[in-house]
């Protein structure tokens, strides 16, 4: 079936929905989502959305921008970070005006709390900048935006999986998708396409990410010759539930929770004397791993799955139940622990992709190091790289990123589609996707994806995780190439057309394999440590040679690495200490 729209948005999380609200004001817009919109992973975000409202204590967007830039270890494009911080204030008010049920101060204003890396006056001490709704801020944002889409009658194509991006020269013309309920292939011809497909933590074995987070947008863009930026920077959130990866929000530490090793020591005192447990996430994750390697994990056996304690016992029942109810629930349900009396066993978990599809601050996709725009192609949210997060993202900046840049992309789409024609699409546009699906569904015997996925996730966790070195990454690259070859002969076990979730998983696996290879190659190429990218063989930050973005071009089974400059026009890069 064929469709024509001014704008097609892929992904119905925070960025996709906000873009849809804006775009649908003037453009005939459709939102495609592989899940029902309310299942999107934005709903799992817990801690908050930051904005310098100054409701609880003095704050300024300038301080927020600086914290974001320093938090990103100076790989952040600084004027973009300033845009993020400045637009944050109105973005939060807009969400509230649309009904978001923020937690409140006694005076009835939006309440704010402390969060990692957010400081007053350029690093003096922590500042209460994170606006929150208990520990369900993401859920509230997702629900509020979906409610607004219902109010504005936005058109949704639920449970459609995108298969191919149609790009002719430097012009995007639409996309090809499969309707999961029927197996039917649909071609969407559009003046503008926005990818808001979220993250890809499922490259890793232990992750906070949903099963659906498989980087579909970036994988399709990469296969069409569009470079992916800064893929080596993948954030490991310090506090995932041991063994499961389920996120325990930084908000626990924001409310006073403390990380302790087997001696009961608040070990962050040694790693970040000023911000302590509220240091940026990459620093805390490395600290935890270092403690474990030195035999100070709770078991003390130095094994990779040893863990530390997150001690929330000092917070008291009232705070835990009113401000952190969901987290208290997770800990009770999955660990059988009462957080008011027992510490929570935690371990870093693969959490957030700082890298992704490169864009400018209007959300337009940039395809090289010279600022060349791919006409009609946009990206926003976690799958995009503006870059506002640089080498490491601060907590509460992602929900903000979705709202600010989702909105900007939607607004630009309105302008862009006005008065231009629908691009031409060849009759054969869907052929490549059709024949690929047909091949996968062929009754032929072939390996199933399950084994390949296990291996990929294990390799990535071991060799492209928190601490990296050349030997490990080279091994990962070579194993991933092998896995991609084996993938080529994968076949489904379910050959049906209706709700073929087996087929969906194989499509997703292909996307993850491509992104894993790109991540490993990008990591191998960067010979320094910066933000979340830590190399044992190159432990120092090297601004002289490496203060630049990585661009990775997927070329069959190789990845070609390029670079592009970072905007450091506002603050001079300095060592990142807290």
């Amino acid at each position, binding site marked *: 079936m064929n469709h024509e729209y001014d704008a097609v948005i892929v992904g119905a999380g925070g960025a996709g929905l906000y873009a849809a609200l804006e775009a649908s004001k003037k453009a005939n817009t459709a939102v495609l989502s592989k899940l029902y919109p309310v299942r999107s*992973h934005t709903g799992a975000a817990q801690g908050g959305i930051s904005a310098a409202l100054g409701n609880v204590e003095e704050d300024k967007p300038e301080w927020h921008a600086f914290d974001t830039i320093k938090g990103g270890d100076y790989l952040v494009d600084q004027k973009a970070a300033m845009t993020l911080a400045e637009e944050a204030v109105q973005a939060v008010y807009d969400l509230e005006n649309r009904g978001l049920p923020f937690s*409140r101060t006694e005076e009835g204003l939006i309440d704010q709390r402390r969060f990692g890396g957010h400081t007053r006056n350029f690093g003096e001490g922590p500042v209460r900048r994170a606006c929150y709704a208990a520990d369900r801020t993401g859920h509230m944002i997702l629900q509020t935006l979906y409610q607004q889409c219902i109010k504005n009658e936005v058109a949704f194509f639920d449970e459609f999986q995108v298969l191919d991006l149609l790009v002719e020269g430097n012009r995007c013309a639409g996309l090809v998708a499969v309707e999961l309920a029927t197996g039917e292939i649909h071609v969407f011809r559009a003046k503008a396409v926005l990818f808001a497909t979220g993250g890809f933590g499922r490259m890793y074995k232990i992750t906070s990410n949903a099963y659906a987070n498989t980087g579909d947008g970036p994988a399709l863009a990469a296969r069409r010759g569009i470079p992916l930026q800064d893929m080596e920077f993948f954030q490991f959130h310090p506090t995932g539930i041991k063994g499961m990866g389920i996120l325990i929000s930084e908000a626990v530490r924001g409310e006073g929770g403390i990380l302790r090793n087997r001696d009961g020591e608040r070990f962050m005192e040694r790693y970040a004397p000023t911000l302590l447990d509220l240091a940026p996430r990459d620093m805390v994750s490395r600290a935890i791993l270092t403690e474990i390697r030195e035999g100070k994990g709770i078991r003390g056996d130095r094994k990779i799955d040893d863990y530390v304690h997150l001690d929330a016992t000092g917070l008291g029942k009232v705070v835990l139940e009113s401000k952190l109810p969901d987290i208290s629930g997770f800990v009770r349900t999955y660990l059988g622990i009462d957080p008011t009396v027992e510490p929570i066993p935690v371990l870093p978990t693969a959490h957030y992709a700082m890298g992704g599809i490169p864009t400018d601050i209007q959300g337009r996709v940039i395809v090289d190091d010279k600022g060349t725009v791919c006409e009609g192609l946009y990206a926003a949210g976690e799958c995009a790289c503006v870059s506002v997060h640089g080498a490491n993202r601060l907590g509460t900046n992602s929900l903000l990123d979705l709202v600010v840049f989702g909105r900007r992309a939607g607004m630009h789409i309105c302008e862009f589609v006005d008065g231009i024609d629908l691009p031409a699409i060849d009759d054969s546009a869907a052929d490549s996707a059709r024949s690929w699906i047909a091949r996968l569904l062929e009754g032929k015997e072939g390996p199933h994806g399950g084994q390949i996925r296990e291996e990929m996730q294990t390799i990535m966790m071991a060799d492209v995780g928190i601490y990296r070195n050349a030997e490990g990454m080279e091994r990962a690259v070579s194993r991933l190439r092998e896995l991609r070859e084996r993938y080529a002969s994968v076949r489904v076990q379910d050959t049906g057309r209706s709700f073929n979730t087996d087929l969906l998983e194989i499509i997703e696996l292909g996307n993850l394999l491509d992104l894993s290879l790109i991540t490993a190659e990008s990591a191998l190429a960067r010979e320094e440590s910066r933000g979340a990218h830590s190399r044992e063989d190159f432990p120092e930050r090297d601004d002289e040679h490496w203060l630049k973005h990585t661009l990775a071009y997927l070329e069959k089974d190789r990845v070609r690495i390029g670079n592009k400059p970072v905007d450091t026009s506002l603050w001079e890069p300095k060592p990142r200490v807290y």
Partner: protein
Amino acid sequence: MKINLKIQRFDPQTDQEPHFQTYEVEVEPTDRLLDAMMHIKRFEDGSLSFRKSCAHGVCGSDAMRINGKDRLACKTLVRDVVAGEGDTVVIEPLRYFPVQKDLIVDQEEFFTRYRAVKPFLINDEPVEKGERTQTPEQRKAFDDPTNCILCAACFSACPIPEEDPAFLGPAAIVNAYRFLADSRDRGFEERLPVLDVPDGVWPCQNHFKCTEACPRSIKITKRINETKRMITTYRKKRGESVKDGKL
């Protein structure tokens, strides 16, 4: 330990009727039921179909009937549903919705009823600057309904739709209440035509099955009763009777 999962299967292309298939799987007591199902899907039978995403109880994708109780597969631990080695867990799709494949049901009607209550803030008063204020007490008044993840466990658990399939349903009503009780909302009258009708809020008979099933601990029955009270008070003030279809 080894346990059995007895799962309802249905492939519209090949089956006339749903039927059960039993799988044996090796599990730990602390595994999520979803983990066991994923293991089967990935290593034994790729055709087993079910929805899932977040795997920790916040997205609502994997609501299903487990040993006759409507719950989320990712929030149900093996030890919650088996006593020991060799036990069987029966897994069926949610009730009342057409089965599309295995445990995947057509939720269109569920979302249609949700949309019918206008589940968005209704307030055209201009905001001068910043946020509309709301005290912590006012915020608390509608707190638990804001947690709804639209998983439909409550709808499946409710006995009313068996007799009265047009009943608006607990989720739609509780999402309406979320706005009725929000001090910033002005949409009470606008939502009345959907709530104050014979198939609106009135069919609820306080069975409490919804409240028991809700994985987000929402006091659904309580909120439905509060909604009924708000409507009754409103009608009384105007000398009208509620439109519950009774004399």
